[in-house]
Structure formats: structure tokens, C-alpha cells
């Protein structure tokens, strides 16, 4: 409850759903659901397979339309909110696997501009910084297709961090990782929230690896959302 009160006072830090009905194909993900929750720190969106976690993340980005109601992230509707949001999809890209990983990150760094880049240096430096931040520098110049699942996820995370978002939506960032890999990634995510103050919403079935790390859990079940702090 304390959480709800805080976000009412500072809606720019939270997620607000008002009477949202959301369907994916013939599956009803949310039915008339309302929620107010802070997004500082790490928020785990949990639910069984097929509950609609990925769909909800995509709705926050405006990638799937709502049937009814509205979603405000940091006080903004999806079309504006996404300028401050970094996204890592559940299935990492399988496009252009022959290109080096660093090219994929560079493309994300200035991929929103029209026209040709006049200065290549700032973009390169920014991409290198992001790859270093996610611990992907060592394999940045190998073709993306030759990287392991865990390595690709680090590249995906660097891509999500392009554009200096203050919120990250990470869909299953711990899948395809072994125990050590999960620990590494969790520490990296903690670092992002602590040091850079980036809020993180992630979906995961690895509740063990995340216990004690997440600030709150949002449970998605039976068309409704429930917060557990």
C-alpha cells in the first residue's frame, strides 16, 4: 500500500493501468485490470507460461493495442513513454547473424535518426561504452550468430541500453543462462539499478536466482494483476 501512495504523489516514477482489457489472439491477458505500482529498483513480472507477461510488456511499448483502458508508464502513454524505455525481447534477434555484434549495438545507438551520420566517432564510443557496461566487449567483434545464448543476451542488453533509457523492460533475461551466468546477469542488473538509477521490469521463472534482489513482484494471473512487495 505504501508503494501505491508513493506513486500517486510521483506518477512519473511508476506504472499505472486503468481498467485495462488486453487480448493476444484469442487469449484474454487482462480483463478490466487496474494497477498502480512504483517502478524504481527491480520489478519482477511473474506468471505461468502463457499468462501474458510478454504481451503486457509489449503493450507498455505500444506494440500491441489495448482493447480498453489506458496504460501510463512514468505518467506517459506508450507512444511517448517508449522514448525513455529500453526493451529486450524474449527471443533475441535472428536477423543479420553474419554482422559483428558491435554493428548491432551501433545501429541501435542512432537508429532513430533520419539521414546519414555525419560523425561516426561518438556513435562508436557510445556503442563501446554500452558493450563494456554489459560485459560484452570481449566478443563484440565476432559475428552475432557465432555467440552463445548468454553472450547474445549481453549484446541484447547493450542494445536495450542505447538511448539512455531510465526504464528497462527485459523479457526473460535469465533464460538460456546457466547458474553462474544467471548470477552474473543478476549482479549486472543490480548494478544498473543501484549505480545508474535505472528502473528494471523483468519477467522470469527463475525466482530462486532473483530472491532478495527484486524490490517487488507483480503477479499476472487470471486476467488480473497483484503486487507483492
Amino acid at each position, binding site marked *: 500500500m505504501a508503494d501505491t501512495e508513493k506513486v500517486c504523489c510521483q506518477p512519473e516514477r511508476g506504472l499505472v493501468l486503468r481498467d485495462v482489457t488486453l487480448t493476444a489472439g484469442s487469449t484474454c491477458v487482462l480483463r478490466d485490470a487496474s494497477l498502480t505500482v512504483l517502478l524504481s529498483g527491480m520489478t519482477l513480472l511473474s506468471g505461468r507460461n502463457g499468462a501474458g507477461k510478454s504481451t503486457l510488456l509489449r503493450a507498455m511499448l505500444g*506494440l500491441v493495442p489495448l482493447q480498453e483502458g489506458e496504460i501510463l508508464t512514468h505518467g506517459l502513454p506508450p507512444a511517448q513513454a*517508449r*522514448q525513455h524505455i529500453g526493451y529486450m525481447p524474449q527471443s533475441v534477434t535472428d536477423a*543479420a547473424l*553474419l554482422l559483428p555484434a558491435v554493428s*548491432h549495438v551501433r545501429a541501435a545507438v542512432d*537508429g532513430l535518426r*533520419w539521414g546519414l551520420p555525419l560523425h561516426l566517432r561518438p556513435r562508436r564510443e557510445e556503442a563501446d561504452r554500452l558493450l563494456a557496461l554489459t560485459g560484452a566487449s570481449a566478443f563484440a567483434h565476432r559475428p552475432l550468430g557465432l555467440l552463445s545464448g548468454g553472450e547474445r543476451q549481453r549484446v541484447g542488453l547493450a*542494445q536495450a541500453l542505447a538511448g539512455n533509457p531510465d526504464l528497462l523492460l527485459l523479457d526473460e533475461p535469465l533464460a538460456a543462462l546457466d547458474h553462474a551466468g544467471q548470477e552474473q546477469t543478476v549482479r549486472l542488473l543490480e548494478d544498473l539499478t543501484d549505480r545508474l538509477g535505472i528502473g528494471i521490469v523483468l519477467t522470469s521463472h527463475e525466482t530462486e536466482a532473483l530472491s532478495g534482489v527484486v524490490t517487488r513482484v507483480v503477479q499476472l494471473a487470471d486476467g488480473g494483476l497483484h503486487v507483492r512487495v
Partner: protein
Amino acid sequence: MFEFDFMRHAFMGAAVVSVLAGTVGWFLMLRRQAFAAHALSHIGFSGAAGAVWLGFPPLSGMVVFSLMAGFVIGAEREGERGIPAQRDSTIGLVLAASLGLGAWFLHMSNRGSSLATTLLFGDVLGIDMPTLKALCGVAVLCLGLLAFLGRRLLFASLAPEVARARGVPARLVSVVFMAVAALACAACAEVAGALLAFSLMIGPAATALKLGLGPLAGIALSVGLALALSWGGLMLSWVTDAPVPFWIGLGAALSYALADLWRRVRSR
């Protein structure tokens, strides 16, 4: 060989088309749309046949037909969540329909086989000044549009989901790019013929991608190779009397094979 006007025109035409094919081809291959390149140039062939039948220059028919097809293909819904777009089916059916029309046009124009041969294999030595100017116009338009789309197109090609999440209008970018590709295919078909136009688009680009080069280096190599293929083809056909498309097609396959070999040797 440069004392002849037709030879100079051929070299200039080949240069313009190579720069265009190398650049557009790189994006086509990056987006795995080789089939689109193949289809668009054949669709252009039908348009050219239609234009000849109605008494217009072949290039105009090629441009109109492949542009229309480009819009249809580009407007195909983007694939969603791991389900690839049904692009290949759309392309295949658009191709089938327009080849059918092409057969009808050839039949009506009464010049069936000789016309078909010219259109299919191109007539690079027959390029005149007006055609050359038209080619330059098409090239400037295409490269301009591509430069404008550049970074968004790259982002949307490399990470479609992420790009859409950040607000890149993926559908618009895809349609405009297909229109550019259609124009480029028409221009290439004018030089290399409908049958081999796509060899100039695909061979150099596939080679550059195979070598694992980033965008800038990849496009530069792709353009360089396209130039080498088309100019080399012109010179070799001057010396050997074998047709230009023969050398271009063979050279494209050879350069890809060499790149493949290079990768294998390096990864040992």
C-alpha cells in the same frame, strides 16, 4: 575499345548501375530478401514487354511494373514474435501474376522471341544517351532515399522488435525500401537483363556479408565488387565475344565462393 560511343555509354551505364546495385543489394541481403530482388527484376521484364507493346521505352514499363510490385511486397505485414512474415508467398504470387501478364504482352506485341531475348539478357551495348540519363536519375533518387532512410532502415533490419519498440515506423520504412529496391532492379535489368539483374545485386552483397564486415565496409566492398563484375564483364566480353551477363553471373558466384573459402581458411 573506348573509341566507340556505345562502349563509353556501356561503361558509364554499368558504373551507375553497379553503385546502385551494390548498395541496395547489401540491404536486400541483410534483410534476407534475395527472392524479392529476383522477383522484382522478372516483374520488370513483364512491364518492359508491356511498354514495348504499347510503344513506350522498355525502361518506363520496367519502372512502373516493379514499383507497383514493390509496394505490394513492401506492404506485407511485418512478421510478429518469431513468426516470419509470409513475404515469400506474397512475392511468389505477385511474380506469377506478372509473368503471366508478361507472356500476354509478348504475345500481343508480335515480336515474341527476339524481344524476350533482349529483355531477358539485357543490351548493355545498346544503351543510348537518353537511357543513360534516365539511369542516372533513377540512381540519384534511389541513393538519396536510401541515405535518408539509412539509419532507421539499418536498425529495423538488425533488430526489428527493438526498433519498433523505440518508435521506428517499421512498415513505412519497409515499403519505401521496397520501392527503392524495385527502382534499382529495373535499372539493373536495363544493363544486365531481367534474368541476371539480380546477380549484380546479390553476388557482391552476399560476398560482403559472408566476410562478416560491418555496414560501412560491407557496402563499400559490395559496390567495389559490383563495379569490378560489370566492368570486368564488359572488358572480357570485348575480348572473348561471350555475352556480358555470362561473365557477371559467373563472376558473382565465383566471388561468393572465394569469400566462403576465405572464411573457412580463417576459422581453422
